[in-house]
């Protein structure tokens, strides 16, 4: 499964949810969906804006974890 490490990156960059939402032009509610891992998909445009605002790579935000691995 794909884990969203957005909160980790936000903590590293010391940026609040509202500030980031405003910077990348999405609603705080949608950012919350992303942060809590409830999102089913993420648009390339959103990912691009997130990476731009947080000055990081997509891999810093998204992480693949093998479900079958115990």
């Amino acid at each position: 499964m794909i884990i969203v490490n957005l909160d980790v990156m936000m903590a590293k960059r010391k940026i609040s949810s509202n500030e980031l939402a405003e910077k990348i032009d999405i609603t705080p509610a949608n950012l919350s969906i992303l942060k809590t891992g409830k999102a089913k998909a993420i648009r390339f445009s959103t990912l691009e804006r997130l990476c731009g605002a947080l000055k990081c790579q997509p891999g810093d935000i998204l992480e693949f974890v093998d479900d079958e691995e115990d």
Partner: protein
Amino acid sequence: MWNKDKSILLSQILVKICYVFVIVCAIAAPWLVELYEKRAGTDGLYTPLLATLMCCVPPAVIALVCLDVLLWNIQHGKAFVELNVKLLRSLSFCCFSVAAIFIYFSILRPFAFVIVFAAGFFGMILRVVKNCFQQAVAMREENDFTI
């Protein structure tokens, strides 16, 4: 000018008319069956026909309530929600139950098999519509959770 709202309103009016029709038929069933027996000139049909009709009243009322709620949801912009899938499933079960109830009567009067077939066919169509709605709900959810 004919529009979506007027179309829903017309459907709601038709459902309300059906409510009245079902209730009136349920109350007047003994008299209607007696009249049918006299006109058709048949004997021994009173009890089985009355029992069959009375057994069909609960699924008919449930189906009308489901239609009413479904129309209310559509009117309020909630067409593709999980509740509507459940309502369509209930509607199809109501049709199947009417078909099952009429099987007994169709043994006594083979023409009643038309009702069995029609109710079963409606139930099948509703199941297909339910499957479409289920797919649409999944697509809407995916769309809503695409950021």
